């Protein structure tokens, strides 16, 4: 073999570990840098999340770093120019921080609610939420209200963990996997790694989705469901399980509230609440004692089915209620088929297949050292039911998503698959008690921190955040009768509510990484108008808008003050267990980012801005008793701040009293950042074998978790099939609650209709307020695997994969309608119309159209030319979606288009009609004005020839050319 030249200038290369941020997956990466340029980004093989692999986005980090849309300095809207006109002047970071500090100081000293602070796709909600509570405003939330609150709430109010970040399938052991409504970007690498494992192990993969793209492409079976009907599918499968007597008796009796007795006194106060003893313990009927006993005790023999009078009260066990409900005719596969568009045969077969795998292919994991259950009893096996599921946006973004998510969890629980081998596993710090014991803060006062975090988990109407008249206290009306369990807030309502002064006006809207003027809002065009709307005195209705982003987004164009953020390769950051964890089921994990590139711009990470402002404004937690600043910068804050003794943002390499390094709980360690950097930028602590399963009822685990401050008590976490929280709100709606109750008829009706202690299917709200014959198509959208939200059209490599989105339509349906492939069509909803290019495909449910979202861009944004396909041919579906319910001239006209329980934005409820555009009507519509370039913006090149160093060519020796010529001539006998 001829010697090869040295291709890489190793002498000037450095490899540093950090964490990817091309999406929310947070994979470990090794970045090779030379001359402050990125040479190569590779997955970190030791990292718990991606184990060395990396997706298209992660591999395109070079082009994110290289984006011409990067902001170069703070910018201030030019005095005398209009907001949104795009006229800015560059200022220094020092000037920008002074302006912001002065504005915030005044608000904090007078009326902290005048600050609305909402963050987009960040992963530092623990810091921004803490900042907001120290500032003293209730008006804080992140983007969960339009992303996945239904999944988080559905899981946390049922089993103490949830899908995605709080739980995962047991990929190594599962034999049957059902993926519900998962767009191709959630979660990027772990699902791909897992699906390959599943298939290699001979498992079966079912994709429940109206579109057969991405993951669904490799599914063994596709369930082409109508959007928004998944609850009916799940509950019909539950019906089949009950009909065939296929459920896990032991699991239900030992680990859930299926045996708890429910007071059955319809139309009376107390109906539907649990029968409790004088200590408040839930009662069950003991078969041996023939008496009602404390259902949380061990060694009792509770009746699973029970229907009688106890202590003078008519009661039924939860399981009796479940059986009565779901054996009902409305849940037969034949009826479900009509609603879901899924054949009855398929529904029945899938349910039975799951029963077979759960109960006839049961696995047992030996635990030689034994595991101890919540009551102190030792066991030597973990029994596993190897059926697992994952679900996400297709469930979440409907106004029935909370109940749908619960319905899917019901299936999992009935099959006994929660935190068992082969089933669905919690990821530390989950599971938590149900729900987590944090209540939303209710009150605020000038210059005073909130008493708790702005967001929490209500368990009844008394936890709502309203004034004495039942009026919302938060700008997004979270925790009001409109959306009582809105645990992630309603970011999608902030601009509309603030402009309408309903519930009140604000002074400053501060947004981080949220493109609310474009793809991250419903009703984009009118939202842009609202941002420009003025009072009669000429003042803007939202007087001051602060935006922090690293790139020139559409929202940046509407800012009065722009604070340019660093890129993910330029900053210190933490991925904390206090926030959205990156743990794996059997390992507690967190991670950091460290700068690998030195920014050559006047930029500051939003992390640093937070700590800087907190110090300047004198937040108590950031200030010494003498009034001086407690933390020099973000790194200092992360090391030294403690939520409680021993617990901080990073769990790894803390210190015990002797100064030895310990994990999970310990004193601050000044060398903590260095220890993370040295360990590949992450911390991973594997759980010992005996605390890897049944953690809701595993004593050693619960003690371990309590020490780590993951749970507040070591009591068993009893899975809540029956939700008393739901029933309390329902009673409030019915006028039967001992506590706050709504006074307006539409609130009463919503509470009594949609809140229910057992999950059920109801038609999504928008669809009940429009003429469905007029708008026959379901319209949904999702992210492709190779792009993340609005971020990646600026990426020169990723936009070559897709620079224009199409409206995908079922080929047979389109052909029947006379729509040709790639025809330009109008798409109309009750709210608006757009012009789009249609593609006819097989991989689309018959009554559904869908598209990739956030590909479309406003002209001039994101460093793209005016000619970019994204701005001329791509389209946003957002124009068709209203943030309010469709108008019907009733009190609901002004109510948010969201899940009535959680406030989750219902952007998948959309229905549309599609018809061909007239001859000559081409190109996207509506078209927006061109965004002006920034004063110190970058020039986008015509041709890009990126390389970190000059290539070293591998030369073919002339001797080889002469001797062999064309290598095949001889073989062909020439």
């Amino acid at each position, binding site marked *: 073999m001829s010697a090869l030249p040295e291709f890489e200038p190793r002498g000037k290369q450095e490899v540093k570990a950090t964490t990817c941020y091309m999406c929310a997956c947070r994979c470990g990466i090794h970045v090779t840098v030379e001359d402050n340029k990125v040479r190569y980004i590779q997955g970190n093989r030791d990292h718990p999340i991606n184990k060395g692999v990396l997706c298209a986005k992660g591999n395109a980090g070079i082009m994110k770093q290289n984006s011409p849309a990067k902001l170069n300095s703070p910018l201030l809207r030019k005095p005398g120019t209009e907001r949104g006109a795009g006229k800015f002047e560059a200022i220094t970071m020092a000037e920008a921080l002074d302006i912001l500090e002065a504005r915030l100081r005044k608000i904090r000293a007078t009326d902290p609610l005048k600050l609305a602070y909402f963050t987009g796709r960040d992963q530092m909600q623990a810091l921004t939420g803490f900042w907001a509570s120290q500032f003293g405003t209730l008006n804080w939330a992140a983007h969960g209200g339009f992303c996945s609150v239904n999944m988080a709430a559905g899981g946390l109010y049922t089993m103490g963990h949830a899908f995605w970040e709080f739980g995962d399938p047991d990929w190594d052991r599962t034999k049957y996997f059902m993926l519900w409504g998962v767009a191709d970007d959630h979660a990027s690498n772990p699902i791909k790694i897992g699906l390959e494992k599943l298939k290699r192990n001979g498992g079966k993969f079912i994709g429940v989705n109206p579109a057969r793209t991405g993951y669904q492409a490799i599914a063994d079976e596709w369930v082409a469901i109508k959007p928004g009907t998944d609850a009916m599918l799940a509950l019909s499968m539950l019906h089949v399980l009950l009909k*065939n007597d*296929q459920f896990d008796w032991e699991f239900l009796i030992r680990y859930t509230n299926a045996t708890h007795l429910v007071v059955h006194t319809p139309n009376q106060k107390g109906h539907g609440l649990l029968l409790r003893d004088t200590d408040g313990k839930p009662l069950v009927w003991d078969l041996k004692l023939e008496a009602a006993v404390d259902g949380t005790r061990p060694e009792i023999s509770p009746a*699973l089915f029970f229907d009688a009078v106890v202590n003078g009260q008519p009661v039924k066990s939860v399981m009796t209620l479940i059986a009565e409900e779901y*054996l009902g005719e409305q849940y037969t596969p034949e009826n479900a088929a009509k609603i879901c568009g899924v054949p009855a045969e398929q529904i029945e077969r899938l349910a039975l297949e799951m029963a077979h795998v759960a109960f006839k292919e049961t696995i047992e994991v030996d635990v030689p050292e034994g595991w101890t259950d919540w009551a102190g009893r030792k066991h030597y096996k973990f029994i596993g039911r190897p059926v697992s599921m994952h679900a996400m946006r297709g469930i979440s973004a409907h106004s029935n998503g909370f109940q749908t998510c619960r319905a899917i969890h019901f299936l999992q629980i009935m099959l006994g698959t929660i935190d068992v081998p082969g089933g669905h596993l919690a990821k530390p710090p989950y599971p938590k008690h149900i729900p987590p014991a944090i209540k939303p803060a209710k009150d605020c006062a000038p210059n005073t921190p909130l008493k708790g975090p702005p967001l929490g988990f209500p368990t009844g109407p008394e936890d709502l955040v309203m004034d004495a008249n039942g009026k919302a206290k938060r700008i997004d009306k979270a925790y009001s009768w409109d959306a009582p369990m809105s645990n992630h807030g309603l970011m999608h309502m902030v601009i509309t509510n603030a402009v309408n002064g309903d519930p009140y006006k604000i002074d400053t809207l501060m947004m981080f990484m949220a493109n609310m003027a474009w793809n991250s809002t419903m009703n984009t065009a009118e939202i842009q108008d609202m941002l420009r709307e003025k009072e009669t005195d000429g003042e803007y209705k939202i007087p001051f808008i602060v935006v922090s982003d690293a790139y020139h987004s559409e929202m940046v164009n509407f800012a009065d003050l722009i604070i340019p953020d660093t890129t993910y390769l330029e900053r210190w950051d933490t991925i904390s267990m206090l926030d959205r964890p990156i743990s794996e089921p059997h390992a507690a994990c967190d991670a950091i980012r460290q700068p690998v590139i030195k920014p050559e711009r006047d930029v500051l990470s939003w992390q640093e801005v937070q700590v800087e402002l907190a110090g300047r404004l004198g937040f108590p937690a950031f200030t010494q008793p003498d009034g001086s600043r407690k933390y020099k910068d973000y790194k200092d804050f992360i090391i030294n701040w403690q939520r409680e003794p021993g617990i901080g943002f990073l769990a790894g390499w803390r210190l015990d009293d002797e100064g030895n390094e310990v994990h999970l709980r310990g004193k601050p360690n000044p060398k903590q950042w260095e220890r993370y950097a040295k360990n590949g930028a992450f911390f991973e602590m594997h759980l010992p074998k005996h605390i890897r399963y049944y953690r809701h009822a595993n004593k050693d685990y619960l003690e371990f978790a309590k020490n780590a401050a993951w749970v507040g008590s070591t009591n068993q976490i009893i899975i809540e099939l029956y939700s008393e929280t739901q029933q309390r709100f329902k009673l409030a709606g019915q006028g039967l609650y001992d506590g706050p109750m709504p006074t307006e008829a539409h609130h009463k009706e919503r509470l009594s209709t949609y809140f229910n202690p057992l999950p059920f299917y109801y038609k999504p709200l928008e669809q009940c307020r429009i003429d469905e014959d007029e708008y026959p198509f379901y319209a949904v959208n999702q992210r492709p695997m190779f792009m993340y939200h609005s971020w990646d059209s600026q990426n020169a*490599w990723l936009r070559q994969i897709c620079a224009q989105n199409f409206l995908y339509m079922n080929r047979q349906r389109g052909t029947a309608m006379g729509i040709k492939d790639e025809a330009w069509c109008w798409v109309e909803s009750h709210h608006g119309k757009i012009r789009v290019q249609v593609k006819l495909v097989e991989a689309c449910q018959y009554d559904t159209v869908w598209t990739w979202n956030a590909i479309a861009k406003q002209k001039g944004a994101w460093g793209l*030319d005016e*000619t970019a396909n994204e701005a001329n041919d791509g389209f946003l579906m957002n124009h068709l979606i209203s943030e309010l319910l469709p108008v019907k001239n009733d009190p609901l006209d002004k109510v948010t288009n969201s899940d009535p329980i959680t406030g989750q934005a219902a952007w998948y409820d959309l229905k549309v009609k599609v018809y061909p555009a007239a001859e000559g009507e081409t190109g996207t519509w509506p078209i927006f004005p061109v965004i002006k370039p920034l004063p110190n913006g970058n020039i986008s090149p015509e041709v890009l020839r990126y390389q970190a*160093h000059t290539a070293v060519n591998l030369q*073919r020796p002339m001797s080889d050319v002469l001797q062999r010529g064309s*290598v095949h001539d001889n073989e062909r006998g020439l």
Partner: protein
Amino acid sequence: MKLGLVIDLDVCVGCHGCAVSCKQWNTSGTTGPLTDYRPYGEDPSGVWFNRIRSYEVGDYPHNKTINFPMSCMHCEQADCVDVCPTGASYKRAEDGVVLVDQDKCMGCNYCSWACPYGARELDRSSGTMKKCTLCIDRIYDERLDEYDRQPSCVITCPAHARHFGDFDDPESKVSKLVRERGGYALMPELGYNPTNRYLPPRITRPIPTEDVSKKSLISSVKEWVNKAVAR
């Protein structure tokens, strides 16, 4: 040695991870840069060594989407090499990797016309033909870990759908995969004898349901008799 790739169509989800990984490694690799045209304008395009094609088979609702990554097959009968008038295109004797010497290539395009797999891409800025090098600048680099001495696309693939190795060695991972999974060559009838192999989708095992079906279905909650299960 006969080096090449095995690509598993049973697990490829079409994420484009391999294609972009190839792009980033090779843009600073031995034949880099891989030029991009109108990177921020209309119809952006550029030089890629690996592209993912997607196809649909069958009619709704019995359709399937196939994601099909395609790059140089490193053919044994490499007509792209035969037609090269300058000797720039060659198939290495020692490992079968087909390469283009950038100093000898004059960008005449003959090779791209000769290639039935569309694997060759002209870089209009350099005026030279470029293609998959099988990461020749990685696979022999002894300063890399042994695992890293593989093409970038293989290392990055999130679904582990790509495998690299020596097809001349019957005990190599690629040879075994081809044997066990019925790996096949693309368009063998054309006679190029490509080295790369594709693995077809696995057959799903049937899951019995008779053993969990009741002959007489439960119709009322009253039919259940409680079992004594100690909590």
